[in-house]
């Protein structure tokens, strides 16, 4: 009996043709309608996901054809589903492949009704779908009031003797366009097998804001209170004795417990006593996994919105506060959010990104916030950490947290055929960092250069079944020689200390034809990709402590070392060098204080004239129509991206599609993972016009060092490794488009 459980919540933005008409100002007819194609892609991606989901909640499935596609394509893996929730019934499939309507009059009476209800028919249903691999728990209906049973039968939904434990409760309180949909909270009780207690899963898509943050907070607050009461009614009151989950697009801008702002909606709704969602449930992202500095800092943005802040964490998974399962990893499933190859006419799956959760039976260090902190022995001991004979049972994982940035090697001494490991910066727990240039030391492991800390390593089993044993090894580079050199990531300050207490770091290394005793070796790499000009690198070295000198060296051929520059006698140094592709140089900092030297700490930074636009999944660039241009119909948009004057990509209207207000398109398929630039990247947004000249808007993305404080670039995230994310404003005629991009100064693949 496994306790591994994997959950997904995803706002799919599968609006109906009619909703698309109604949603666009200037009513585009026919509207931009890709719901069916996207539904097929979403279904296939979920079913085939290597993450192997057990429970899936999808919001905003309003298009009936898209709903049918999801049902059909997901049925093989998820035979149990709530296919539709409306004002008076919910429709389910219970393993048979056909749907049955269940009258809410009966489910409220039998399972729970939080308050009296006054809402009735709405133009649209709730848009909620819930899927499960596990069967629905069932309840007998013998206790149902005969009058209610008769009413249900009269409505064409007779109540059988046994029904699945499902429920839905619509919200009375809605504002704006949300009032057209029957928004509410859905519930399913599923049971893995007869030996396991059931899981209680609640799912909702609450009131959205339209033009500003917390615009409809009051309506949403009332809805969330209904959710709390509904949970209490359906589960059977507090304290919860079985696993309870609540998830969905809650449209509350997510904060983090360590730095949440008083009186803001997140704090009041999810971290203030007196609410079920604060007292008995936990927002697993903001209150457990990533609570903000000094805890883990990833803000977990899951959606793009047209008002500031333009990226927000709107999607949530809550678990019961007394849950017996460990929330091992909450993350954005970027792979699932990506349009697969072969769909040239669809450039996005949704304006939201899917949020996933991996749960298992608890064990020590199985969540990021409880990660083990390795300790390395002090010099002159070998700086290696080992964690031997660890067992992972049925999908369990083990996390390690490292609080010092630097160059590391990691290896699984035992179990690498059964387990793997991933490395994450604490600022992004969804996209693992890559092994540095595929370099590996057979003794110490795969090399990773981590430009900020804390960072974490997760060791996980390939299979969720059975028991896997592993041993983990971590080694921190000390700079004792070129084989042990410390990488200097461009733009990122590196702090290093020489051994204390009169210990020397190393002796003179014989292959170098100069004295390099007690030297720390640092490494600078030229780019792995071609640039239009040489990479100009400036290296600044400052010391604190005893006397030191610096040297710049290159291995011109195997075993042959050339000294390019050598300086000493100064308190600080500046070195310059221009690097070609694949060129490697080393900076040596030599402590010059004899055989029993005094302490020395050095700070180095290597800066270049290059910035890097991050594309692909790593950068997840997007284009959003913040304000559509006035006039007839949708904006027929084409795009051209130019890097330092050379065209990177011209994107036709057929590829990127038309835009209505709020529309979002992913650009990752046209922007490669790394786009280095020196002067700027021009984003040209062209609104094609049949009868008059095209309206062209353009904005040039400045180099990284000029982005802070620029009024055309609204920063949404700025990390210690110099990666900055923000919204670049592009005015097009009387409309406004926004390119959401990430820029950095260094990347391990560069």
């Amino acid at each position, binding site marked *: 009996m496994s306790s591994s459980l994997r959950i997904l919540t995803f706002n799919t933005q599968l609006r*109906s043709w*009619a909703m698309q008409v*109604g949603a666009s*100002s200037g*009513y585009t007819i*026919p509207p931009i309608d890709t719901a069916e194609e996207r539904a097929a892609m979403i279904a296939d991606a979920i079913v085939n996901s290597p993450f192997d989901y057990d429970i899936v909640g999808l919001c905003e499935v309003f298009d009936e054809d898209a709903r049918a596609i999801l049902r059909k394509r997901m049925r093989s893996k998820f035979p149990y589903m709530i296919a539709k929730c409306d004002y008076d019934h919910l429709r389910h499939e219970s393993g048979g492949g056909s749907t049955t309507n269940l009258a809410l009059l009966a489910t409220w009476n039998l399972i729970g009704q939080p308050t009296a209800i006054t809402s009735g028919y709405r*133009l649209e249903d709730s848009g909620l779908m819930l899927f499960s691999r596990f069967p629905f728990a069932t309840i007998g209906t013998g206790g149902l009031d005969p009058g209610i049973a008769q009413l249900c039968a009269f409505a064409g939904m007779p109540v059988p003797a046994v029904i699945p434990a499902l429920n839905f409760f619509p919200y009375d309180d809605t504002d704006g366009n949300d009032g*057209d949909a029957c928004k509410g909270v859905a519930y399913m009780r599923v049971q893995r097998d007869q030996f396991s207690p059931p899981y209680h899963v609640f799912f909702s898509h609450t009131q959205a804001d339209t033009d500003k943050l917390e615009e409809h907070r009051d309506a949403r607050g009332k809805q969330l209170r209904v959710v709390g009461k509904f949970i209490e009614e359906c589960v059977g009151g507090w304290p919860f004795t079985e696993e309870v989950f609540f998830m969905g697009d809650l449209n509350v801008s997510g904060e983090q417990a360590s730095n949440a702002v008083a009186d803001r909606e997140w704090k009041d709704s999810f971290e203030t006593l007196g609410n079920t969602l604060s007292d008995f449930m936990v927002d697993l992202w903001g209150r457990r996994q990533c609570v903000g500095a000094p805890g883990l800092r990833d803000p977990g943005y899951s959606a793009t919105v047209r008002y500031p802040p333009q990226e927000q964490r709107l999607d949530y998974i809550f678990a019961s506060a007394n849950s017996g399962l460990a929330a091992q990893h909450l993350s954005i499933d970027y792979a699932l959010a990506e349009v697969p190859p072969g769909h040239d006419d669809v450039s996005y799956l949704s304006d939201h990104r899917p949020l996933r959760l991996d749960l298992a039976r608890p064990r020590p260090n199985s969540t990021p916030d409880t990660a083990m902190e390795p300790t390395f022995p002090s010099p002159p001991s070998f700086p290696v950490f080992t964690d031997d004979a660890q067992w992972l049972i049925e999908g369990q994982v083990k996390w390690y947290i490292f609080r010092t940035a630097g160059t590391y090697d990691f290896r699984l001494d035992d179990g690498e055929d059964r387990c793997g490991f991933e490395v994450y910066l604490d600022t992004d727990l969804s996209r693992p960092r890559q092994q540095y240039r595929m370099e590996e030391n057979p003794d110490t492991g795969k090399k990773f250069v981590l430009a900020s800390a804390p960072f974490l390593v997760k060791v996980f089993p390939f299979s969720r079944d059975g028991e896997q044993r592993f041993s983990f090894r971590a080694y921190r580079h000390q700079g004792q020689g070129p084989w042990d050199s410390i990488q200097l990531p461009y733009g990122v300050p590196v702090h290093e200390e020489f051994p204390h207490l009169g210990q020397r770091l190393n002796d003179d290394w014989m292959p170098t034809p100069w004295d390099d005793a007690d030297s720390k070796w640092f490494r600078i790499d030229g780019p792995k990709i071609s640039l239009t000009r040489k990479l100009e690198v400036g290296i600044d070295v400052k010391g604190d402590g005893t006397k030191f000198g610096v040297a710049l060296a290159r291995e011109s051929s195997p075993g042959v070392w050339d000294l390019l520059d050598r300086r000493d006698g100064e308190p600080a140094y500046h070195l310059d060098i221009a690097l070609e592709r694949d060129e490697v140089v080393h900076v040596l900092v030599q402590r010059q204080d004899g055989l029993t030297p005094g302490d020395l700490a050095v700070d180095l930074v290597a800066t270049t004239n290059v910035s890097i636009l991050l594309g692909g999944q790593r950068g997840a660039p997007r284009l959003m129509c913040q304000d559509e241009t006035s006039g*007839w*119909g949708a904006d027929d948009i084409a795009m051209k991206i130019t890097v330092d004057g050379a065209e990177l990509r011209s994107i036709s209207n057929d590829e990127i599609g038309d835009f209505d207000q709020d529309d979002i398109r992913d650009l990752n398929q046209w922007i490669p993972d790394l786009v280095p630039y020196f002067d700027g990247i021009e984003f040209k947004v062209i609104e094609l016009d049949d009868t008059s000249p095209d309206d062209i808007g353009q904005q040039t993305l400045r180099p990284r060092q000029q982005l802070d404080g620029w009024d055309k670039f609204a920063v949404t995230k700025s990390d210690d490794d110099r990666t900055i994310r923000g919204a670049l404003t592009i005015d097009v005629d009387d409309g406004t488009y926004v390119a959401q991009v990430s820029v950095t100064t260094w990347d391990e693949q560069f």
Partner: protein
Amino acid sequence: MIYLVDQRRRGVVAVETLDALTPSSIWQPWAATGVLDRPYGVQVGTDEALYIADGGNGRVVAIDTSDGATTVIQPSAAIGKLKGPRGIAIDGDLLVIADTDNQRIVFGPATPTSPTPWSTFGTASVSGSRAVGEFRAPVSVHIDSSQRIVIADPGLGRLVRIDDSTGAGWTEIALPAGTSAVTPYGVAAGPDDTTLVTDPDNGRVLILASDGTVTVAIDSRNARPRQLVTPIAACIDGDDIVVADAGAAQLTRWTPDPDANGGAGGWTLSEHLIGVPGPLGGPQFSQVTGLAIGASA
């Protein structure tokens, strides 16, 4: 009979009553003439034929409702091909087409034996220019009881009326302000020789009197839950107004009510129909783009 154009089904759904139980039928062209592609406006001719603006195919299609015989109507070569036509009006021998993507109005014979010559009126608005005779997106036309042609051009946000195919008597109709900019979309015959005008962005239906004044017949803006999202076409059915709502994929019926609009009188919602068939198979539609009323089949 209520005829509803559905782009999804590429046909005209014939709806007898606004309930989900009564079976409906669908009219589509004969196979030899090809399927409809993005159809918009529909009109019922005096012979009960359905005239459909077949936008994606750049043509008008006439379907005889007695036997399904299909005729394709194209202007003469001198006029040139239609491009994305969306609106259509018929009165006796006169056929008027809103040739939307050519930004002009086309006049022609309603039947092969009609004496009406082919002609056009109007030129393209450039960068939003609004001179007399200019159009940006003429999507709907109506021939009123005085044989004048009413044209809705939401691209320029204006409603104009002309006396005949020369464009004489060009009059730009003043429209009552709404919460959003007023962009007239659908025009059709209204009660007592008036013209119905839909105002989708404001969820309203207006009435244009023959003297050029406009009043509000239906204003659903303040109703909760919303009663109309994007009304794109309206027709008079007896004393009632039937409205096709593209934004909610629904048909609604509005009945005269002296207490409506705070006692000023008007129409109030009495029935609505969504295009999801009931157990006995009612009408099915989801992408509503046109509406017309004809005699019972």
